[in-house]
């Protein structure tokens, strides 16, 4: 038969563990890593890629310049963004993209490649009933 003190210690350690674990789970759940890249070769678009994944570690930094997307009680960020793709991509353009452009003229034949990239950035995402607030961390 267990003593009362033993049970108390056991329940105390469990509750402390939960207290430590839950906030970290909640915080990491609302942070996402997003990257975006596309390539334009000879004025034609190729390989547009938008990558979204949940952060497995807590991100550092302060949120700024938020974007609010309307939802209908949806908690899936990928679905929300793909539904409002244009708005989110315009927002990423505003945040700033790396421009890498190369053109070559060999024997008077011209080719060009332009790559626009948003490097993997941590975003804080707040899900609400009717909207989602997305803001990058810096």
């Amino acid at each position, binding site marked *: 038969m267990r003593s009362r003190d033993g049970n108390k210690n056991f329940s105390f350690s469990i509750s402390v563990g939960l207290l430590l674990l839950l906030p970290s789970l909640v915080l990491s759940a609302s942070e996402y890593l997003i990257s975006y890249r596309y390539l334009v070769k000879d004025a034609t*678009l190729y390989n547009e890629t938008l990558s979204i994944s949940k952060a497995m570690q807590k991100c550092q930094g302060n949120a700024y310049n938020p974007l609010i997307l309307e939802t209908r009680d949806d908690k899936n960020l990928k679905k929300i963004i793909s539904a409002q793709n244009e708005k989110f991509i315009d927002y990423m353009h505003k945040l700033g993209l*790396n421009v890498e452009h190369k053109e*070559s003229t060999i*024997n008077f034949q011209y080719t060009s490649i332009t790559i626009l990239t948003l490097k993997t950035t941590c975003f804080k995402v707040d899900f609400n009933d009717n909207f989602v607030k997305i803001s990058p961390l810096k």
Partner: protein
Amino acid sequence: MKYSLVLLALFSAASLSAAPQPMVVTAAEPVPTIVQAEALAPVTQEVAVPANSTINVSCPNCPQAEVVRAPEAAPQVAPVAPEPQEDVLEQNSNILISVVGQGVAPMNTSSPAQAYALAKRAAVADAYRLVAEKIKGVRVDGQDLIKNMMVKRSTVRTSVQAMVRNANIVETTFKEGLCEVEMEIKISHSQFQ
């Protein structure tokens, strides 16, 4: 009667041939220079000739022709247009840079809407590239391979690398498969401190 008619006709023909006929010669580059030549009958001929040219008037039956030349015009100095000054980013001032990017849709699009969206994306990338070129500049490398006094291979490579943020799309037009995006960006001195 017949003789009188013939005489009248001959007389009228002779009077017509003696009548002064104005003659105008147009040169390739007309310059208003007036030449007056004295003939048996006082004849005034207006001849437009190019400047700095020599005029020889031959008239065996008339006294020495007098050539009056217009005074040579002073050399005209074309007004020198002031060189367009490049914008300099001074303290407490902004510069607005405007570019137009172009893009085309791929051949295998499933709908006109998709073609428009893809062409616009390409045009935006082109506009970003133009902004980066204007602000940061372009690196240019060139190489020519010459063998036996002949150019075998000519290569020009240019590259741009920059980070562009806060650029605004002002206008988008899509016409005959070509999308044009007008983009503006405001540059302030404080952004470079």
